[in-house]
């Protein structure tokens, strides 16, 4: 870890100015990811800008019936917020499937979007990694890639975005609100994270100096039929091998609206609108779900130790859709296995 200076920014404008004024500045939310990266010398910021005094930790209802999550609201406060629990239980479930209570108490919603991949090589300076050091090579390809991506990969990087929360946000069509040197703008969630392509060092489309100020959720929360299914190596405190956020609206047994997003499979939360389209208008049956699942993994590619993820994703999608459809209709006997404590 290198030495650095620290300012607690009093306001959004001041924070952005600090960031522009210092080469090597970084915002710090809960620090649960950034500090680890600094200890490993993966991130070496020279100036940290604290965000805790920005007053961005509120969670408020919007006039259009949506909900605004302040960028500095903690993951725990968000997951347990009564409005989130009631209207966006998919989001609650996804957040609570991630990390541990201690981490969620510190982690902020803005920081969650910005957390970096858990690729082993990215974390270890002794190995080449294009994301950490552009042009040095990708060690995961041809190496140990059990936790790596099967969709949207490039020859330069096969890392995944590790967040659970973001998978639900993708499914719910959230909007990211940012402030930067050139003012404010909003970014549709779909466009926030990017695929690695030839520039794997870029995780997202945020411009230098831009600060996430909040996340807007549209009014539609899919609170009746949803499921966040996370498959991982242990029951808690492990990143997803594959996770699925499934959300449905049903008219009788007919699907009238559908959202389907996956975690642990790509460089970004992987929402598949083509698969969603296959669901809408169809009866909520296992056959329908299988067709959607097949669509999602159509172009999937394994890299050796992660080949299993293709089949796992297929099965997980079917199960998550089934759980979502059956919800509030009959008790799910598998709840104990797939619930996320």
């Amino acid at each position: 870890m290198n030495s650095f200076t620290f300012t607690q920014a009093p306001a959004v404008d001041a924070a952005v100015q600090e960031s522009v004024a210092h080469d090597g500045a970084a915002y710090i939310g809960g620090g649960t990811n950034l500090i680890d990266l600094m200890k490993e010398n993966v991130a070496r910021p020279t100036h940290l800008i604290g965000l805790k005094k920005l007053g961005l930790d509120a969670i408020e209802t919007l006039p259009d019936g949506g909900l605004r999550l302040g960028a500095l609201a903690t993951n725990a406060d968000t997951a347990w917020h009564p409005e989130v629990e009631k209207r966006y239980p998919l989001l609650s479930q996804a957040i609570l499937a991630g990390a541990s209570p201690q981490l969620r108490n510190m982690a902020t919603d803005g920081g969650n979007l910005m957390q970096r991949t858990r690729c082993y090589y990215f974390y270890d300076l002794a190995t080449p990694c294009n994301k950490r050091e552009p042009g040095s090579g990708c060690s995961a390809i041809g190496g140990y890639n059990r936790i790596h991506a099967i969709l949207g990969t490039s020859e330069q990087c096969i890392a995944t975005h590790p967040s659970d929360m973001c998978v639900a946000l993708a499914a719910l069509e959230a909007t990211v609100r940012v402030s930067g040197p050139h003012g404010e703008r909003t970014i549709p969630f779909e466009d926030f994270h990017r695929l690695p392509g030839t520039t794997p060092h870029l995780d997202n489309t945020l411009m230098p100096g831009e600060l996430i100020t909040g996340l807007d959720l549209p009014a539609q929360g899919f609170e009746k039929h949803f499921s966040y299914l996370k498959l991982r190596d242990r029951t808690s405190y492990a990143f997803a091998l594959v996770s699925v956020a499934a959300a449905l609206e049903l008219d009788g047994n007919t699907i009238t609206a559908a959202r389907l997003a996956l975690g642990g499979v790509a460089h970004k939360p992987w929402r598949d609108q083509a698969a969603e389209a296959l669901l809408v208008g169809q009866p909520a049956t296992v056959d329908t779900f299988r067709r959607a699942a097949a669509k999602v993994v159509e172009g999937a590619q394994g890299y050796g130790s992660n080949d299993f993820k293709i089949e796992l994703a297929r099965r997980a999608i079917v199960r998550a859709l089934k759980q979502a459809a059956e919800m509030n209709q009959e008790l799910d006997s598998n709840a104990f296995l797939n619930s996320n404590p």
Partner: protein
Amino acid sequence: MSQTIATPPSIHLDTDYIGKPTSRVDGPAKVAGTAKYAAEFNVPNLLYGYVVSSPIAKGKITRIDAAPVLALPGVRQVFSHENVPHLAFLDRSYKDDVAPGGSPFRPLHDAEIKFSQQPVALVVADTFELARYAASILHIEYEEAAHETELARHIDDAYEPGRGKTGYKPPKSRGNFGRGWEQGVAHMEARYSHHAQHHNPMENFATTVEWLGDKKLKIYDKTQGAFNSQQYLTKIFGLSKDQARVISKYTGGGFGSGLRPQYQLFLAVMAALELERSVRVSLTRQQMFSFGHRPETLQHVAMATNPDGSLAGINHFAVAETSQFEDFTENVVGWSGMLYDCKNVKLGYRLAKLDVFTPLDMRAPGAASGSIALEIAMDEMAYAAGLDPLEFRLRNYSDFDQAEKLPYSSKNLRACYHEGAAKFGWERRSPEPGSMRDDNLLVGWGMGGGIWDASKQPAQVLASLDADGHLTVSSGTNEIGTGTYTIMTQIAAESMGLPLEAVTFILGDTTLPESPLQGGSWTAASVGTAVQEACTALGEELLKQAKKMDHPAFKDAKIDDVQFANGQLRLRSDATQAVVLRDLVQASGEPKIEAKNSKLPGLIGMVKPPKYSMHAHNAVFVEVKVDPDLMTVHVTRVVNAVAAGRIINPKTARSQVLGSVVWGISSALMEESVMDHRFGRFMNHSLAEYHVPVNADIHDIDVIFVHEEDAAVNPLGIKGLGEVGLLGVAAAVANAIYHATGKRVRDLPITIDKLL
């Protein structure tokens, strides 16, 4: 029939404390944070050392550019092979008590890189943060050489190790396996493997060296043996014992990782002597993957049975990794010639040299690995022979140690089978894989078990009674969280007839009487026996004092005629004839009366030719529930029945077995150090990616201690149980998964990808 030796009346103990569940006497200190660990001693004027680790697995250092680092204000020194002081020359000087054969690793010795993450430099600075930063910018150039880290590619050049390491017994074959195999009517043959594991105790390795002037050091070390650390240091640095006092009062988990002095001890002491300052060196979690580990093994088992289900032959062969510089040996296959009755047994064990650090004993070393293969193989054989796995084991029950050709001093494994099965409800098992369900989930029941040495080492103990009637018992053993403080207090209190509060047990300091390393499940038996002996010796001193005091009742009394109870010395024949212990000390005119046990500590493993084979056993029953689509596995129930002689403290003993079961589940389902052979480097070197179970992974665990009396192991009848509880657990989980799903996975851990 199992053989039981009754406890002779002369050593009969009434059980005021022994055998009673007793909370840890060191519990309050640990909860309140007053129990201090090696890195927590904030001695004045402390310097901090940070270790720089090699990014390559093999090659040599060609350049170290220390100047820019040394120019940073507050950086005191950069130690590397370029400026390390001249130290002891012979390999012998670097051997610790459990060093295997070969040439021990010498930190910063030369430019050669022998394994990835090898310590290559130590940066010493005024603060930890500065040392860490300075270490991160230290420029070192390397010349890489081709490394070999893949065990599977070196089976052919594996060799039979000699008798290098203490406690290692080359496996002995007997009979004629080939004939047994041919005569058999049912057969099984399979290959098994598991990967390296790192101990990862909660407490990272650290040493704080307090410089007291004139090369006199007070060394707070994370270790499982203060004396082992001390002898290592005195030989290497030419220090006297007085100059190298090692203190280790609490150890935040060991599991074997503290059996050998780790390199931070060497580095901290070297820096302290060179700089004539107090120095602390602590390792990071990543660096906890830079030294000894449970070695990967590749195993092969073949078995055949006779028509009556008895074993006609067993063949068990294992190849394990070791380093290029030492032969790390452990007993992987030997157990397969002991646990079951079989005339024709063929055993083989080989090592392959790889460019890794020397492996290291890890909880139930060898047996944990070997029992994975043996106990899955037994399950496969039971299925091939059409027998229930429990019935199959009972038909092959062995009352006699066929490997050593000795009777067991006691063996109540049969009770483990029966009591464990009854508690678990094993008789309700339907044998067909996939035949048991709980709603939509597949249910699987599997079993396994194991055998572990009941050993004892010489240990020295001092018992001292003061004028307030308080008994202090001391020995330089260690407490690695197993409950040593507590059971020694219980044994002493019981021996002297004092309440627990009137007894203090002190350990972890080389100024105390010498004790062996805390390992091999021998501490309870070794130090416990010595505590009892020291108390007996103290009793004799107290009786002498009573005789001096004109007490007519004790005039002709012998030690066997008296007993210690209620804080008194009294006649067995007439309890009203008594004198208060405190009064004896006061009357002596001395501040205290004390005595040592007479046994002198010797070399580990030096024991008389035995009359009995002495072992602890266990049987484990496991239930798993598996989602048939997603193949997620949950271990919902475990019953572990253990036969380990007398249980001094059922509470701490149960904790030992609970921890073993959790580790077994971990080995079965998630735990492995993953090496990328292109880099020769373990890649999941953090607790986020090196997976061990969380609370939510652990459900019901039942521990049963079956009755077992054994006066041959030691007068207290203790066999030790730090390790036996782990055996067979991982195999039982694998067997249960087979029973649930029909899938036989022989490469552990059984992660979801292997079941899809």
